[in-house]
């Protein structure tokens, strides 16, 4: 791993862990805990994004409890999908970025629903679980309630995360893009 990547990975992990707190201040039921993973993937490729996702989840476990470790699989999936998006100039325009974000949200939400249902019996983060409880109260079965709440939240969450990273990369000066050639490819340049 070269020196620039050694500097990028801790910053991207810190972004994953800190941006959630900023979003809480805005009062939206979003996680945005994958912005660092997507950013690292766009700048340096999916392997670096997966390292960010894996180490970030390990450190999140150290700080908030290792019960959330299985959700690390979602970080790896996001890195793979962001890598696919970057390779196909998926960050060239807002429209393309939203489409890739929605695709990632659908797949990440499906995986999240499976993990939530099998390992956590439907009880995970407070916002998602509140939606699950409401749907159960309305007569939905537990698997259906878990799937619906995970999908709905992840679709919005990943679309917003992709749009933010796309806007950020498009606004970077050429000098910085020159240091991360993969980012230029993600923008179709």
């Amino acid at each position: 791993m070269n020196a620039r990547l050694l500097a990028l990975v801790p910053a991207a992990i810190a972004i994953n862990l800190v941006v959630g707190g900023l979003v809480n201040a805005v009062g939206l039921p979003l996680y945005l805990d994958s912005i660092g993973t997507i950013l690292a993937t766009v700048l340096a490729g999916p392997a670096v994004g997966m390292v960010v996702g894996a180490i970030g989840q390990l450190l999140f476990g150290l700080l908030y409890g290792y019960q959330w470790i299985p959700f690390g699989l979602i970080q790896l999936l996001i890195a793979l999908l962001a890598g696919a998006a970057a390779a196909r100039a998926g960050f060239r325009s807002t429209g393309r970025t939203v489409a890739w974000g929605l695709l990632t949200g659908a797949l990440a939400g499906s995986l999240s629903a499976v993990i939530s249902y099998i390992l956590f019996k439907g009880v995970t983060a407070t916002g998602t679980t509140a939606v699950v409880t409401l749907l159960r109260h309305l007569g939905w079965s537990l698997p259906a309630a878990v799937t619906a709440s995970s999908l709905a939240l992840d679709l919005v969450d990943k679309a917003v995360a992709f749009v933010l990273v796309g806007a950020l990369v498009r606004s970077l000066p050429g000098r910085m893009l020159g240091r991360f050639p993969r980012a230029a490819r993600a923008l179709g340049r």
Partner: protein
Amino acid sequence: MTARPATLASRAHPFTPLVLTLCIAITALAAAGPLEAGVLYAVTVALAVISGVGRAALRALVPLAPLWFFLFLLHGVMGESPRIDVAGLALSEAGISLALAQAARLGAIATASLALSASFSPARFIDAAAERRWSFAASYLVVATLLALPRFRARAAAILDAQRSRGLRLRGGPLHRLRAIRPVTFPLLLGALAEVDERGFALETRCAAGVTARTPLAPPVDRPADRVVRWLAIGGAVCAMAWRVAG
């Protein structure tokens, strides 16, 4: 992040609490019913107290409380029939058993990880990793991130205050709030990328990426007791998994 040197947990070799935590997590996943999971939770709390990081058990209650509440609500109250009467409440028999088992599993894992966090010293960990000839990059990434977190948190708080003082409103409908995300997150992300640039140069000039192995000046002592505890924990976790698979 660093525990007071007097505690047993902070005197142990840095790998011992790490292995113990991972083994507790594996054993918790293998615990089939509320009794086994409850015993594991009690043992974990006792271990934390004996190791001098008993406050972790109290700190773990903060993330655990909402999870326990929703487990009780979703499975105990809204679970399937047959129902049993508990203190005047008609609760699902299978649901309350599932909720108790899951609550104890989560309790054990959260307590163990926060106890690990309370005893974790980045400097001792990097020395222990260097002594085992782990790659410099791997240990640097863990420690650099732990050191970066407080800096990023402080910067995020400063950005939030600055944007508010410039008139950014964080209230209103969902669309209004969604629009507020960009001015709040962008400065943090751009600042992080500028820092990556500077640190990249600094690491390059120190030839950090080329370091294959370094010799720690005073590596943490790996006592026989540490090794025994680690092997006992691994043995216990393997037995618990085997018991679960066989049963």
